[in-house]
C-alpha cells in the first residue's frame, strides 16, 4: 500500500453502537506511562492470582499479608529477602543485558550452576591451597565463577552467531547438562562421604556477612546479608554504564532494535552476539559464585530454586533497565522466600507466570491508546 498518509491505523470491524471504541497507535509515549503500566500490570496480576487462590480455597489477603510480613516484617527477614534477591539481581542483569540485544538467553540457570561449580573448583580441586587468605581466595573464586559462566554462556552465543542455531533451545539444553554436570561432581569426585554434597568450604572462601561484624555493631547480629549484594549493586551500575554510556552499549541497543541496520552501520553483529552472551553468562556465573560462597558454603545439587528462570521475569518487570532489575529482584526475592512456606508449592510459580503475562499484555497500552468516538449519524 502506498498511501503516503502517516501511521496507518487498522480498520476494525465497526461495532454498531452510537459510539465507537477505537484503538489508535500512539505517536508519543509519555515518560510516566511505562512505569504506570508496569505497576498496573503487577497489581492486576496480584488480583488475578488472588481470585485463583480464593477459588482454590485459600485466603488471598492473608497470603499476601503473610508474604509481605515474612519478607519485609523485620530487619532479620528483610536481610533474608536481600539474600534471596542477590542472585536474582545478578541473573536478572544477565537476562536484561542479553534481552536488550534480543538474544533469548534462557540459560541463566545453567550459567549460574556452572558459575557455582567454577567457584567451588577453586577451593575443591583445589586451585589454591587450604588456608590461603580471603583476599586471594575470594577474587579467585569470582574469576572462576565468572569464567565458567562466561564460557558456558559463550557456547550458545557462538552457535547463534556463526551457525544461526536457535539460542533458546541451546540454552535450555545446556541448563539440563549443567545440572547433570553438578550432579556428577557432588555425587562423584567431590562427594563428602558418599553424601550428595561437597565438603564445606574453608572459612577463607566465605563471603563476609553483616553478622560477621556483630561484635562491633550488635544490631548486625544474625543478619545474613553478604558481600554478594554489593556485587549485584556494582554490577547494575556497570551494566547501566555499558548500555547507555558506552559504544558497545550503543551497538547492543542498535542490534537489538534492528540487526540489519546495525550491520549497515558497520557493526559486527556476530562478535557482539558472542560477547554479550559471554558477559551475560559471566553475570549469571557470578551469581552462582555468590550463592556458594555467601550462602551455602558448599556445592550441592539444589542450590537454585530456579533463579535463572525467575530472572527472566525480573528482567521484564524492570523493562530491561539495570536499576529496575534491583527493585524487581527484591520483590521476587520476597515472593520466593515467603513462597517456600506457601502450600501448594506451585503457587509462587503460578503467580510469577501471571505477572509475566500481565506485563507483556500491558505493553499494548504503550503502543495504543483507547479512544471513544461518537459516531456520526
Amino acid at each position, binding site marked *: *500500500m*502506498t*498511501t*503516503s*498518509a*502517516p*501511521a*496507518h*491505523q487498522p*480498520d476494525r*470491524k*465497526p461495532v454498531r453502537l452510537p459510539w465507537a471504541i477505537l484503538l*489508535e*497507535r500512539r*505517536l*508519543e*509515549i509519555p515518560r510516566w506511562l511505562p512505569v504506570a503500566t508496569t505497576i498496573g500490570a503487577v497489581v492486576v496480576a496480584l488480583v488475578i492470582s488472588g481470585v485463583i487462590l480464593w477459588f482454590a480455597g485459600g485466603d488471598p489477603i492473608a497470603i499476601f499479608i503473610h508474604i509481605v510480613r515474612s519478607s519485609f516484617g523485620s530487619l532479620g527477614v528483610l536481610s533474608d529477602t536481600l539474600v534471596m534477591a542477590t542472585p536474582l539481581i545478578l541473573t536478572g542483569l544477565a537476562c536484561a543485558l542479553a534481552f536488550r540485544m534480543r538474544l533469548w538467553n534462557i540459560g541463566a540457570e545453567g550459567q549460574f550452576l556452572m558459575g557455582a561449580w567454577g567457584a567451588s573448583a577453586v577451593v575443591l580441586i583445589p586451585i589454591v591451597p587450604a588456608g590461603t587468605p580471603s583476599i586471594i581466595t575470594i577474587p579467585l573464586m569470582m574469576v572462576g565463577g565468572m569464567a565458567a559462566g562466561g564460557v558456558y554462556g559463550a557456547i550458545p552465543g557462538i552457535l547463534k552467531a556463526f551457525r544461526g542455531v536457535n539460542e533458546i533451545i541451546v540454552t535450555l539444553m545446556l541448563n539440563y547438562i549443567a545440572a547433570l554436570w553438578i550432579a556428577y561432581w557432588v555425587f562423584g569426585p567431590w562427594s563428602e562421604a558418599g553424601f550428595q554434597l561437597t565438603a564445606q568450604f574453608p572459612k577463607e572462601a566465605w563471603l563476609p556477612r553483616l553478622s560477621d561484624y556483630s561484635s562491633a555493631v550488635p544490631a548486625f547480629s544474625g543478619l545474613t546479608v553478604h558481600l554478594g549484594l554489593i556485587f549485584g549493586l556494582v554490577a547494575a551500575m556497570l551494566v547501566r*554504564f555499558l548500555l547507555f*554510556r*558506552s*559504544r*558497545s*552499549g*550503543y551497538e547492543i*541497543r*542498535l542490534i537489538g*532494535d*534492528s540487526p*540489519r*541496520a*546495525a*550491520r*549497515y*552501520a*558497520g*557493526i*559486527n553483529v556476530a562478535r557482539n552476539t558472542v560477547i554479550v552472551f559471554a558477559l551475560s553468562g559471566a553475570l549469571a556465573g557470578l551469581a552462582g559464585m555468590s550463592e556458594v560462597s555467601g550462602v551455602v558454603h558448599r556445592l550441592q545439587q539444589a542450590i537454585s530454586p530456579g533463579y535463572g528462570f525467575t530472572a527472566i521475569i525480573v528482567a521484564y518487570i524492570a523493562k530491561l533497565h539495570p536499576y529496575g532489575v534491583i527493585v524487581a529482584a527484591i520483590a521476587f526475592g520476597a515472593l520466593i522466600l515467603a513462597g517456600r512456606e506457601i502450600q501448594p508449592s506451585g503457587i509462587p510459580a503460578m503467580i510469577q507466570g501471571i505477572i509475566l503475562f500481565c506485563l507483556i499484555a500491558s505493553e499494548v497500552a504503550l503502543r495504543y491508546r483507547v479512544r471513544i468516538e461518537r459516531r*456520526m449519524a
Partner: protein
Amino acid sequence: MTLELVIPDPRLAVEMRGIVRRFPGVVANDGVDFDLRVGEVHALLGENGAGKSTLMNVLDGLYRPDAGEIMVGGQPVEFRSPRDAIAAGLGMVHQHFALVPTQTVTENVLIGLDRPRFRIDIGRYDDEVAELAARHGLGVDPRARIWQLSVGEQQRVEILKMLYRGARILILDEPTAVLAPQEAQDLFRTLRSMVADGTSVVFISHKLGEVAQIADRVTVMRRGKVTASGIPISETTTAGLARLMIGRDVVETIERTPFDTGPVVLSMRDVEAESDRGLPALRGISLEVRAGEILGVAGVAGNGQSELAQVLTGLRHCSRGSVTVNGVEVGNRTPRDAINEHVAHVPEDRTGVGSAPNLSIADNLIMKSYREAPVSRHWSIDTGAVRRFANRLRETYSIAAPSVETETRLLSGGNLQRLILAREIASEPRLMVAVQPTRGLDVGAIVTVHRLLLDQRQAGSATILISEDLDEILALADRVAVIYEGRLVGLFDAADADVAEIGLRMTGGMASRPPEPGDAPRIVP
C-alpha cells in the same frame, strides 16, 4: 436542498460521491468524486501523496470512508474488506504485490477462494490458470514459485488472481513503476484487449506520458482533492495536466553546473556476486565513477541493483573481482571498512536497513559517527555531544520532529529520508551510493533529495544513483549505465541518451554486444 432523483447510469461501472478519508493529522481524501465507465481505461493522475491510492483503497474496501457513498454497477455498496469488493467484481493490484513467495502461481491464485471445498487437485487448477493466462496474453508458468518470477511476471500473477475471481473492474496502482518501457507496452496491450472485452480499468499513475498513451479519460488529484474530473484524454495537453497535478507550471527544474571531471573514486573490475538464494546476481560488472560525477544505474527491479549497492557498501561479499574506493580495496571486506573509506549509503529499505525504528532520532543520526569524536571518546559516548550533533543536523536538514529524542518510527517518509541523508552527508562521503532515494516520497521531499544529491556532486563526491525511475536518472545523472541480469549492458552519456535504446537494453534487447569482462571501462566525460 432539492430532492434528487438518482437514476443509475448503466454506462457507469463505479460511482464515488463525496468521499472523505482521514488519517491522523491528514485528510487524504477531502470530498472526492470519481466515476468509471464500463469498458474504459480511466487514469487517476496525481503526485505521490495526492490521495489516489487512498481513494482506490476506499473503493476496494481496504479502508472505510469517513464520509461519502460508493455505487458499483448502479448499486450502493459498503465493502468491509477487499473480499467484499472482489465478490462485486472489483479487484485491485497494489504496488506492493500481495503474493506468497514460497507458493506456486496457481496456489497464489487460489488463496482466499471458497473453492475447492477441501482437497486441492492442483493439476486441474494449473490447467485452468494456464488457460486463463493464455486467453489474456499473460504468459506465466502456473507451476513456478513466485520467488522464481521476475517482477513483471509477478504483476501478471496479480492480474490473473483478479481475473480468476471474475473481476470486471480492475484497479492498477502505479503498475508501470516496476516495469521496463517494453514491459509496460505489453501491459498496455493486455489492458486494451481486456477493455475491449468489457472490463473497466482504473489506472493510477503520476506519469503524464503513459497516461496520455493508455487512458480514455483522466481524473487529476492534488492534496486530497480532485482538480479535474473525468476529462477525455483528447481534450488534454501534457502541460495542462501537469499544471492540474502540481498546481504550478514547472515540475522541477534541476539546475546543474557542468560536470567537472575529478579523479577516479570508485573502480569495479569484473565483480561477481550471488543473491541471497545463491544464484548469480552480478555477473562481471566493471565500471568507474569519478569525483563530482553522478552515475545513474537504470534497470528493471531485480536485475542485480540491490546486490550492486550491497557489494559497494560491504554488505555483500563478491565471489570474484575487485572494488576499490580511492585505490583502497573494499570488496569482500566489511561494512565497517567501506564506512572507513567514506562510502555513504542511502539504502533502498529505509525502515529496515537505513534506520532503527524504535531508537531515537539522535541514536539514528550517530549510526555512522559514534566511533569518533566528538560523539565518543575511547569507550564512552558523550550524551551531550550526541544531542548537540543531532540538533545541528535536525536544523540543517529540517527534520520535522518534536525533539531528537523522538522515536524514529514516528517520522514521515520524507523526514526519515532527510534523516538518512543528513547522517550520510555528515559522514563526508567520497562515494555516495543512493538506492531508490525518492521512492514513495511526496513532491517536496523529492525536490529536497534531488537537491542534496546534486549538492554532493558539487562538493566533489562520486555518486552512484540506482533507481528504477528512468526520468529521475536522466534528470540527475551525468552518465547512465543499464543493468540487466547482473550485467552492464550499456553506458550512455546522459546528455544525449536515447530513452528508447535504454529501455530496450533494460529488457535484454541488445543493440550491440554487452561489455565483456575484459573490456576497459569506458569513461564518457
